[in-house]
């Protein structure tokens, strides 16, 4: 029987090891190795940090790197601020049917491809788009207005794309907050603001952390929204990775970029977990 259990264990372990080993761990090690080699001549390579050096000294690369990081953090904060009241409404104020319907409505954009969502924003915002027409019709503008291809449009798209991943964890944690605890806060003389700060937000913290991590990851790794809605100046780090790999075929530099993106995302996720004293298992699992 023990031998049988052992065979079962090994059989179950194999797929996991193969999957993680061949598709996650070894490819990432390989990507790192490629990023630290320099091509000397045909088929001759040498280990060097030249690509990282290039990435860290070239102003365009460095600027794009930090811009992507800062904009992703900004998108995360905006998403949280917009989503929190809505999540609270769904979890605590809506009742019965309405609650279920609102929750399902929040899920809709998730079931629609990101491409379709971005396309929708393009139709709305472009020069010949709906909003431009509306403004002219209302007399607020006397010529077509171009609202596409700038940072604001890109931000609208980023927030829209990741909204669901903030609302759902928030609703889940807020629903578990007992009404009587909030009532007690008021009975003890708390104001709306102090109850929010002392009771509601601490209780919602797990939801806030997991929502923020996922939204940040999605924004950082987004390619479609910055490409389609952002302007010439809103270059995103993922676009540079794509350009190096597919357009210029400079895999070494592209791999270095990819590794930098990976490190950036790991550091920020780790920092957020550290700051709130939570583990990855609790947050995602």
């Amino acid at each position, binding site marked *: 029987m023990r031998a049988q259990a052992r065979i*079962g*264990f090994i*059989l*179950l372990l194999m*797929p*996991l090891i193969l*999957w*993680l080993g061949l*598709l*996650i*761990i070894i*490819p990432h090690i*390989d*990507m790192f190795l*490629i990023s630290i080699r320099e091509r000397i001549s045909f088929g001759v390579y040498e280990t060097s940090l030249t690509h990282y050096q290039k990435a860290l000294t070239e102003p365009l690369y460095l600027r794009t790197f930090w811009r992507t990081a800062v904009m992703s953090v900004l998108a995360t904060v905006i998403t949280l601020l917009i989503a929190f*009241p809505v999540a609270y409404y769904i979890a*605590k*104020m809506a009742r019965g049917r309405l609650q279920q319907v609102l929750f*399902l409505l929040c*899920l*809709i954009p998730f*079931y*629609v*491809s*990101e*491409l*379709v*969502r971005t*396309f*929708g*924003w393009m*139709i709305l915002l472009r020069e*010949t788009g*709906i909003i431009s*027409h509306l403004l002219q019709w209302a007399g607020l503008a006397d010529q077509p207005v171009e609202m596409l291809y700038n940072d604001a449009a890109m931000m609208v798209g980023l927030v*829209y794309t990741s*909204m669901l991943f903030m609302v759902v964890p928030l609703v889940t944690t807020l629903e578990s907050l007992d009404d009587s605890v*909030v*009532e007690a806060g008021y009975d003890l003389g708390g104001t709306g603001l102090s109850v929010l700060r002392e009771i509601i937000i601490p209780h919602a913290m797990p939801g806030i952390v997991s929502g923020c*991590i*996922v939204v940040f*990851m999605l924004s*950082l*790794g*987004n*390619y*479609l929204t910055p490409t389609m809605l952002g302007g010439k100046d809103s270059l995103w780090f*993922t676009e540079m*990775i794509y350009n190096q*790999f597919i357009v210029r075929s400079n895999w070494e530099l592209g*791999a270095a970029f*990819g590794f930098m*993106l*990976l490190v950036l*995302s*790991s550091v920020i996720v780790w920092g957020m977990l550290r700051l709130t004293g939570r583990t*990855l*298992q609790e947050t*995602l*699992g």
Partner: protein
Amino acid sequence: MIPTIPRSRSFRLIYGTYVLLFFLYLVLPLAVVATFAFNNSQFPSLPWEGFTWNWFFGEERPQIGVFHERGILRAVGTSAFVALCVATLSVCVGTTNAFLFNRYEFRGKGLLYVLMLLPLVIPGIVLGISVLVFSSTLANGLWDLAQIDLQFLRPGLLLVILGQFSFITTIATLVISARLQKFDRTLEEAALNLGATQLVAVRTVTLPFLAPALIGAIVVAFLMSFENFNTTLMLVGSDAPLTIAMFDRLKEGSTPLLNAVSLLLMLGSSLLALGLILFQRGR
């Protein structure tokens, strides 16, 4: 607020309006995409030139509908094929993972669990390039060693399937684990007491219990694969799945044909999602 806590009328009004505006913001882009699928014009924008079905059923230029547009139909087929492969593979591996983490205690379990979660926090594009880099290292190595050229290790459908599989498996594992944790082990023990072997017990007792989660995982994996863009973009060869094909057209400028495709996509995925919700509620 909570019903027992009094709130001024103006506060409630402002709050209600905010929530309403939020849902408008959610629905607006999708509604616009859907509406312009019926515009009788070459552009998905105002002015409104009248209602038409041509972007679905049109047979001749300049308004060829979805159902007569070869390129789009082929891309849908490619996407469906990829999504089926990814869903099957990831649910199989997800099930074995769930059993492994649920049933066995072993050294390194915590570490393996964290590793299992990692694909969720790796940006899709980085997953894509790492798989691309590794497979071409393999292909080049084989060529140098034995002059064997393995075409399937070059960008193409196999790499797209593997790339998507690499992170969708994590989601399948989480979905199936959540259900397996609720399973009452004594039921399985009862089956063993009644003379069933371990395998028979799992097949006749545990797997039927898991069925809703398995079906849920298949649907979610299928949808995620069908809609995936980032990872696919880095690994795609000559056969473009639907999202890539639409992206290429969108870059060149769009016709309401794209709206029509989008509308069908929305309908398809909402039907799948709705079916799943009803199915799980029925249980």
